[in-house]
């Protein structure tokens, strides 16, 4: 046996390895006890076994001997728990009969005191809500989505019903795209009628979206808010370029909730909230800082949301709102909808996994409300949320369940 000092390690180790003695075989020949004796004697020195050399050279002591551990050295683990000065406000969406509306249930989001799924600090107070997108006029949809809703595309009430009953939506967003002045230019009255129909068809809480034209949207929201008084609709969305006073007042008057939308800029999000605070209590504001698709700016969306949530928890009073994500934007990625060469798989799978990954990435920033489109993506996101909500005790991940993955036969 040859025992080398540290200095010689680099040069000689390679030589040792090159001749390939099998260390463990040798150790077993030496026997466990003998090895431990050697350990104790020479301590920190590296042990090299080189049977071919035959003769043991005297050890060259270069450092004070140190004993190699023979047992596991126990270390403590203290969860790195922090305190946060801020809290996200709770916002209630939808109202039951007892609460002034007609919904079977209302949904509360927000209330977080710690970053998303830091379950070692605190459990998540309310599960994030998954909302299904429904449109009131024909729009181009990705093939993978269309195949699931083809029969109801002309009928928003039926579409909403399908989403709730078949796809398990917690809530519906009705997009009133027919009101776009550059397309159908449907009147606020017609739009409000559609809202009433959908409220009749389903009994989950409802969000109502406009067409994107700031002037028209205000007019439409005024009418919609009025006919759905007390339903605590999520008005999607209130934006900086709108007549904020007018729309905020109508939301307040008829007891709804504002979705404050800004484009990927925390300062703009703060500004819009500041302006809304003049008319609305914090508990009636949800924020949306823009969702970009995986591959098309998701990194920006991710970091803005992560920073927004952390800032709120660290005490920024203008960012302490539940966050919403227009996850449907995932379908803007060509990889989600485009026919590609076979190696990238069918778009019927690529599309929904694109939406799923976009949603789950943002779930981890703390998003409280997802507006989504594909049934498989909705199902998966709801399952993951379910598992996240049941965790926290630390005992659900049973080691024996995964311990043998190395020998798993696939």
């Amino acid at each position, binding site marked *: 046996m040859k025992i080398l000092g540290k200095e010689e390690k680099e040069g000689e*180790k390679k030589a*040792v*390895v090159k001749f*390939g003695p099998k*260390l*463990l075989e040798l150790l077993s020949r030496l026997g466990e006890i003998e090895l431990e004796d050697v350990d104790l004697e020479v301590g*920190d020195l590296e042990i090299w076994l080189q049977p071919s050399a035959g003769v043991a050279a005297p050890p060259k002591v270069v450092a004070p001997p140190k004993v*190699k*551990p*023979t*047992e*596991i*050295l*126990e270390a*403590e*683990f203290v969860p*790195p728990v922090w305190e946060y000065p801020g809290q996200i406000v709770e916002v209630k969406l939808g109202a039951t009969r007892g609460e002034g509306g007609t919904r079977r249930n209302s949904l509360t989001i927000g209330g977080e005191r710690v970053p998303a*799924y*830091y*379950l070692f600090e605190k459990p998540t107070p309310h599960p994030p809500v998954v909302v299904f997108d429904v449109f009131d006029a024909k729009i181009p949809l990705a093939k993978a989505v269309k195949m699931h809703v083809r029969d109801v595309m002309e009928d928003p009430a039926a579409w909403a019903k399908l989403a709730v009953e078949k796809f398990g939506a917690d809530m519906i967003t009705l997009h009133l795209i027919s009101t776009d002045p550059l397309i159908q230019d449907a009147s606020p009255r017609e739009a409000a009628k559609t809202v009433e129909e959908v409220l009749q068809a389903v009994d989950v809480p409802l969000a109502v979206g406009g067409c*994107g034209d700031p002037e028209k949207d205000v007019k439409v929201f005024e009418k919609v808010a009025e006919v759905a008084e007390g339903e605590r609709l999520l008005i999607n969305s209130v934006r900086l*370029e709108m007549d904020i006073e007018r729309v905020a007042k109508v939301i307040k008057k008829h007891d709804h909730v504002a979705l404050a939308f800004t*484009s*990927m800029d925390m300062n703009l999000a703060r500004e819009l909230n500041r302006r809304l605070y003049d008319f609305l209590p914090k508990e009636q504001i949800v924020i949306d800082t823009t969702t970009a698709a*995986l*591959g*098309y700016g*998701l*990194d920006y969306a*991710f*970091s803005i949301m*992560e920073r927004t949530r*952390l800032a709120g928890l660290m005490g920024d009073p203008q960012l302490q709102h539940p966050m919403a994500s227009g996850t449907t934007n995932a379908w*803007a990625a*060509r990889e989600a909808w*485009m026919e*590609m060469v076979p190696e*990238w*798989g069918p778009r019927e*799978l*690529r599309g929904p*996994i694109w939406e799923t*990954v976009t949603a*789950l*990435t943002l779930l*981890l920033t703390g998003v409280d409300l997802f507006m989504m489109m594909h049934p498989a993506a909705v199902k998966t996101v709801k399952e993951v949320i379910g*598992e*996240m909500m049941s*965790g*926290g005790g*630390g005992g*659900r*991940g049973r*080691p024996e*369940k*995964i311990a043998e*993955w*190395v*020998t*798993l036969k696939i």
Partner: protein
Amino acid sequence: MSEREIRKTRAKEISPIDVYKLLPKTNCKECGEENCMAFAAKLVNREVTLEDCPPLLKKENEEAYKKLWEMLKPPVKEVTIGTGDHAIKIGGKLVMYRHEFTYFNPTAIAIDVTDKMPEEELLDRVKRTEDFQYEYIGQDLRLDMIAVRSTSKDSKLFGSTVEKVLRNTSLPLVLCAFNPEIMEDGLVAAQKSRPLIYAATENNWKDMAELSSMYDCPLTVFAPNNLKLLRSLTKTLIDYGIKDLVLDPGTFPNEGLSDMINNFTMVRRAACKEGDDLLGFPLMGTPITAWLEHKGTAEVAMWKEAYLTSILITRYADILIMHSLDGWVLLPNVILRQNLYTDPRKPVAVKPGLRVLGEPDENSPVMFTTNFALTYYTVESDIKSGQVNCYLMVIDSGGISVESSVAGRQLTAEKVAEALKETGIADKVKHRKLIIPGRAARLSGEIEELSGWEVMVGPLDSSGIPKFLQEKWKT
């Protein structure tokens, strides 16, 4: 200040002044910078390394070098797997959140093979892993490693499989076996290629530690859902003399997913925010566990593996072992990885103005897009790959995509009309036809009114531009 508190300030808040104080201050310019202060600033920004300063490497500056190294070293150790040109670095993270600085060393993805696979299948998987490639905004997205699993429990077979894999790939390896004797046969076969050993556990740690130091290979520590054990094992292994460790707190695909996220988060926070050196190592995730307990079709396991991978990429995994080689499983994940590892300090927008693509003449098409970086690069790459000669106006939409900026009024007919004037495009072409993005179709009437140009509504996606021009463009 306690040592813990000092370490807390380590990652992000290093001041160039503190670095400068330790530099030779000779302003010799050997590093290529104007002076030592400029070099200090670049060091803090990780644009250069200590090795770029020749005087610092001299014997008399050894002390300063050591201090600087200590000051600048990342809270998550950088571990190298493989050797030479084919080595891959994992870990080396400076921060917990990407917005605090930027993430280095994108999550390495390893694809598994086993020693019981028929040769044809094994070689096919190795080849597909090597050949995997997706071009995305000018970058090649690829897979990184092969993980060889011992499922036969036959050490000779494991050794010969590792040898076979090495003959067929230059990708670095992870060797997976909990039995040290089997592991050693793998290591003997791979002794020049510094594979990652998977894994040391509560039961085998001592033998694995011997193998790790004997063969000079990094070592993974596996302690599923037990951070006290994980930390105890790293403490023991560090004491044993092992320097390059990788931590696997367990990947739970079903029940326990929340524990998994919890564990990864706690480990990374302890390392980055609390200076815990025992947990300051790269994290490994094993989404291949999605194939455990799975019933039903393979697609179900793939689907689970796909989203589990994405969760792990987002929550701090530095290396992953996967099974699926299917494009739809891998594509979202290599793109997610690219996205999260871009430098968040870089702007979202490109400069507005006129771009001349190819060699356009007075009859060439005129188009526009927005200045959102991703929109612009996608359109540019489609035009270039379609070998189209044209003028492309980049309009300031506040760095937002076409669809969102039309909806949000950052992109209006007025802005388009203004750009047509400002770019002087009317002097460059004879015609007065403007091709607008399909997603800006609703602006067409207004643009025609304001500018007097005839509007042609282009395809919804820029991949359709070459075909569109072929069919519709006549002057």
